[in-house]
């Protein structure tokens, strides 16, 4: 048996934990740069605010109904997510953290336990310890657990443990809402007269084999309660690492763009060192805002081959800015710069380049020391000058909440 645990309105729930007065009020969390809505409280959903609604377009609703908005505070969400996941992992040795707010649990070791009451116990513990509301779906396969979770929203724990419960659930479940069914797949199924998950699994396996790929066959088995998708441990070594952010405002100032590129490259280098990887290729992409059709458009990417695989900040910045200079063109209002590292090689397996006797080992060491200092004293304590000081281009975060759990100066004061 599998459980799929999902944090309800996760980002909003994190904000509310430290602002109890917002418990029954409409709240939304905005994407990076305060662009659009990415998390809504139930009250905000009721007001008709849709997911990914642009922030500027809902100003009227916000004013009339006093909706509270937050800029995304990923520092807080990451810490709260870790707290939820760690609490969950205390209930079973088989855990797959699926995303920042979803987690699969393997419950095969608990054959003799009543899973409904175990689910409730898990839920109560997590809600008490973290303050984040969760819902749990329990079923014999991951696909059915995900489906049960959708049905759990009201009851909070939903168990599909008998053939009858499963068939009455799948017979009413729209086929396009099944986990892993994309829009194209859904259209194909609908045109074949398949509207619910039950319709799909009632087709003979031969028909599924003929018309769909192996994924379709797996799905068919999973819907019959035969697990084909095991829990996967954390994903394999990344193949490429990318950092990009939109600018707070459009800019044609080369110095601003250079600073932004340096900041993202710094973050990229940190990610590489966390993974103990080195990059052999570095790409820089510069783009204008495609939604501003009245402005001249420009998109350009350059890939710089690095002389030897490396992950130290100063060298990566040097090559990123070299690439940026090549593709920059004046006269455009840019909205975004993106830096990607690819050709990743484990740190231990670097081959030396005969034409570059110094593979930057000293600088790699220096960067690791910078990481330690920044880890202890707070990110950004030690920086390269290329990152600039004013960062006029920085992303908009007008409604940012404090880092209640990760910064000593942000902890709550009590009377």
């Amino acid at each position: 048996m599998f459980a799929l645990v999902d944090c309800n309105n996760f980002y909003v729930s994190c904000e509310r934990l430290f602002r109890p007065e917002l418990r029954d009020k409409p709240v939304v969390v905005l994407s990076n740069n305060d662009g659009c809505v990415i998390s809504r409280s139930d009250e905000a959903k009721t007001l008709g605010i849709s997911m990914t609604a642009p922030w500027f377009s809902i100003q009227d609703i916000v004013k009339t109904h006093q909706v509270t908005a937050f800029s995304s505070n990923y520092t807080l969400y990451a810490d709260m997510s870790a707290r939820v996941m760690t609490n969950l992992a205390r209930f079973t040795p088989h855990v797959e953290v699926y995303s920042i707010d979803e987690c699969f649990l393997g419950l095969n070791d608990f054959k003799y336990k009543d899973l409904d009451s175990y689910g409730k116990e898990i839920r109560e513990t997590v809600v008490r310890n973290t303050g984040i509301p969760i819902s749990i779906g329990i079923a014999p396969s991951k696909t059915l657990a995900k489906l049960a979770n959708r049905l759990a929203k009201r009851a909070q724990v939903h168990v599909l443990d008998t053939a009858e419960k499963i068939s009455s659930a799948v017979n009413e479940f729209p086929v396009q809402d099944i986990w892993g069914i994309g829009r194209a797949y859904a259209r194909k199924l609908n045109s074949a007269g398949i509207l619910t998950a039950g319709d799909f699994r009632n087709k003979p396996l031969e028909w599924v084999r003929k018309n769909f790929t192996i994924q379709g066959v797996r799905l068919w088995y999973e819907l019959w309660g035969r697990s084909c998708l095991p829990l996967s441990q954390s994903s394999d070594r990344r193949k490429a690492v990318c950092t990009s952010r939109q600018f707070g405002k459009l800019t044609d100032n080369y110095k601003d763009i250079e600073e932004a590129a340096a900041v993202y490259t710094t973050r990229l280098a940190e990610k590489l060192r966390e993974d103990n990887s080195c990059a052999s290729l570095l790409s820089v992409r510069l783009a204008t805002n495609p939604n501003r059709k009245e402005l001249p458009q420009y998109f350009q990417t350059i890939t710089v081959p690095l002389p030897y695989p490396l992950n130290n900040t100063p060298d990566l910045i040097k090559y990123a800015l070299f690439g940026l200079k090549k593709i920059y063109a004046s006269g455009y209002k840019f909205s975004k710069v993106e830096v990607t590292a690819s050709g990743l090689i484990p740190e231990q397996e670097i081959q030396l380049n005969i034409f570059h006797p110094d593979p930057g080992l000293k600088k790699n060491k220096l960067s690791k020391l910078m990481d330690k200092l920044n880890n202890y004293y707070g990110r950004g304590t030690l920086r390269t000058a290329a990152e600039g000081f004013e960062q006029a281009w920085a992303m908009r975060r007008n409604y940012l909440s404090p880092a209640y759990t990760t910064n000593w100066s942000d902890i709550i004061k009590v009377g």
Partner: protein
Amino acid sequence: MLRKSETEISDLEPLEDPGKVSGFQSPADDYREDRLNICERLVADSVNTYYFESDSDEMELFGIKKGTVLIVDRSLLPQGGRLVIVWNEGKWMVRQLITLPDQWLFTTGRENEPPIRFNEKKGMLIWGVVTWSCSPQIEKKKQSKNKKPDVRPR
């Protein structure tokens, strides 16, 4: 997505391993144990621990003054006699919980001060249980007036 363990101060010391010798092997090698770390005493369950800070002397009788750091464990149940973090009408406070058969009260322990009655309907909330309070005994250096820049990732 699990958070990495925090950097220890000793990671930043110039001497990486003071026990590593170049000459005679240390006779103490087999007897080394980790140095005491106060977190082991103060934080029973770091995953469910949060920190608050007192900005008043209201709870003086419990040794809590302005500047006292409160260690709060959400996994513990509020029980009579325990100190709890309370959210009451828009204000955060720390109080002792008194459980009577018919009602729960929050008190500062001062005789002339009436306790506050716990009322969930008014939106009152017990947020967590205080496990330790840590008070500085050396005067804090005056912090510079300039606000510390926000150095979180952008």
